[in-house]
């Protein structure tokens, strides 16, 4: 397995990694935002 070939995705790296990257980023951001929301409210009710 050649990694640089893998990352180049047949000269389509921008499109492929732009898609997979956005997918990963969106999930991470959603989880972080939700954790902040949960933390804020649990502090408020002091569980």
């Amino acid at each position, binding site marked *: *397995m050649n990694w640089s070939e*893998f990352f180049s*995705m*047949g000269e*389509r790296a*921008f*499109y*492929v990694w*732009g*898609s*997979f990257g*956005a*997918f990963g980023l*969106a*999930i991470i951001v*959603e*989880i972080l935002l*939700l954790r902040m*929301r*949960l933390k804020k*409210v*649990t502090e*408020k*009710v*002091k*569980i």
Partner: protein
Amino acid sequence: MSIFKYASPSTFYPLAGKMAPWFAVIAAILGAAGLYLGLFRAPVDFQQGEVYRIIFIHVPTAWMAMLIYVIMAVYGVMALTFNTRLSSMMIEALAPTGVMFTVLALWTGALWGRPTWGTYWAWDARMTSTLILLFLYIGYMALVNAMDDKKRADKAGALLVIVGSANVPIIYFSVKWWNTLHQGYSVAASGSSMDASMRMPMLLMTFACWAYAIAIALWRVRAIILEREKEAAWVANLHGSASLKTSGVRA
């Protein structure tokens, strides 16, 4: 009556907390398997080359965008017929994740369209319908956020998603009609004769997204329940029992 037992926020709150991690684990396992098969094992498409791998996230996110709105409408029907507050809270908990998947479906569709069709946005029937679906999500969230009276927001939001979902098939049909009339692009996002080695990662990713959406919705509904019921006695008891437990351990 056993189902209605869990329709109360106070009994659903701990249940959601117990279930959510399981769905998160399932999502992580399926997602890892799907990504591995999709990126490393699935063969290169002889027509599109490597770029076709975008469908492993484009198709699942597009399906989830649609599915979450339908599930919101089902909760809407439950909210208005059984008058259950929890159903409305579930709609509210699902909406942001629905928006996320809709935006991802549009984004990946554009990035897939550029090398395949030569343009980021082609006004094809599926992409246009997905854009309208995004508008429907935004409408729901705008309505619920604009209302200070939560009880009214719950019911109004429920009614709006029901009306919206009744319109979704009509919108899909009309956009398809418009698309054929104007002889626009109509490239199928996935070939019907798809090889099993390509179909498998797509299914895995779909179920991963599904489990992820459930886990996130359960966690978010916990946040919503606490935000709304912070004055309620059972929340105070939650606090009491938790501190009792820790003090018991220490003693």
